[in-house]
């Protein structure tokens, strides 16, 4: 079984043993899926906003601009082919994330934060 992030919802198991939805027969299936990240005006980081299909990287940036920044949301766009994303697997959810669920001491809640320290 292999993993792909196709669909934009995290890793999806694919393989002969996994039933898949029938593929649309239109030509757009030839266009790769891209994930889109936009940095807002006040934002410090790029945030995932959605996905789209595009024939190549440059047109993906254009499509992202037209689909995800129409309402003055962004000042910077990243696109990346979904196939190039390596994602964690839902099967590994427990070993991956459960161990950090009871380590409250990892949060800086036991420190006095001075009033003049921003962004904490």
């Amino acid at each position, binding site marked *: 079984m292999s993993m792909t992030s196709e669909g934009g919802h995290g890793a999806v198991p694919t393989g002969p043993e996994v039933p898949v939805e029938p593929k649309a027969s239109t*030509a*757009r299936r030839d*266009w790769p899926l891209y994930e889109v990240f*936009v*940095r*807002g*005006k*006040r*934002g*410090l*980081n790029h*945030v995932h*906003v959605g996905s*789209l*299909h*595009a*024939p*190549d990287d*440059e*047109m993906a940036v*254009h*499509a992202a601009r*037209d*689909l995800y920044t*129409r*309402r*003055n*949301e*962004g000042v910077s766009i990243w696109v990346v082919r979904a196939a190039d994303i390596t994602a964690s697997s839902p099967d590994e959810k427990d070993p991956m994330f459960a161990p950090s669920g009871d380590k409250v001491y990892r949060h800086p809640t036991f420190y006095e934060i001075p009033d003049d320290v921003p*962004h904490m």
Partner: protein
Amino acid sequence: MAHEETVYDALDHAHGGEGQWAFGTGFDEPLAGVDTTVPDGIDPADLGAYCLMLGDDALVLCQRLTQWVTAAPELEEEVALANCGLDLLGQARLLLARAGSVGVLGRSRALATDSIPDEDALAYFRDADEFRNSLLVEAPNGDFGQTVVRLLVASTWRLALSARLRESRDPVLAAIAAKGVPELTYHRDHAARWVLRLGDGTPESHRRTQAGVDAVWPLLADLFTATDVETRLTASGVAVDPADVRDEVRDVLTMVLERATLTVPGWPAEQPSRGRAGQHGPELTALLADLQGLAREHPAATW
């Protein structure tokens, strides 16, 4: 960074957190602070007529682009073409409003209900013979290849005009042009990218795009001969002589087409603009029937 969960949150926070970002926030008003008095020595009738030419170009091309909505080859491209159309509609609204504000309304004001603003009266209550758009923008879309070729030609031409009109002596026209320049730069870039990909794509995409070039090229004849209005307004520093942008338009189009491995047709014999004189083809009448039908059937309708 907890406040930065999504880009939409950032937008909301940036404008007082009204929670209404979906209705638009942080937008600039293109005519804010602009003096709307007609400058000394300029005939308002000429200024209005010129605004109609530029406004009708934008309005009609917008309508052509929006005809792709629900019919574009890809959803992403459908939104892209509609966005270009909406940019042009914004320019058209400002230009037609300017024409109306200086009293150029033709028969439209008599036909439209009083509550309808001037720009809507001009858009919805003029017949084809009162439109002053060039023939380039009213021609049918053809296939997608022809559509992007026409968009390339139209945006190259309008960008060249708008870049110069930023220096217009009419401050309203200058402000509208300044708003349009980045929009048209994007339209030109977008269209050029498609022409490059289709022209230098498959044999079928090359053939279709070349056919689009061959269909659009003769329309260039309608663009570069100044009307009397444009000649007078150019002399007074308001307008741009369309002949002044010919070389830039030709150079840009030649460069894109050659890079796209397309054949550049011979430059058509230029002639006085038929579109600017109100001599349009039946395609415009059909386009206006779509554009104007609802407004004429249900004047001042709201929804």
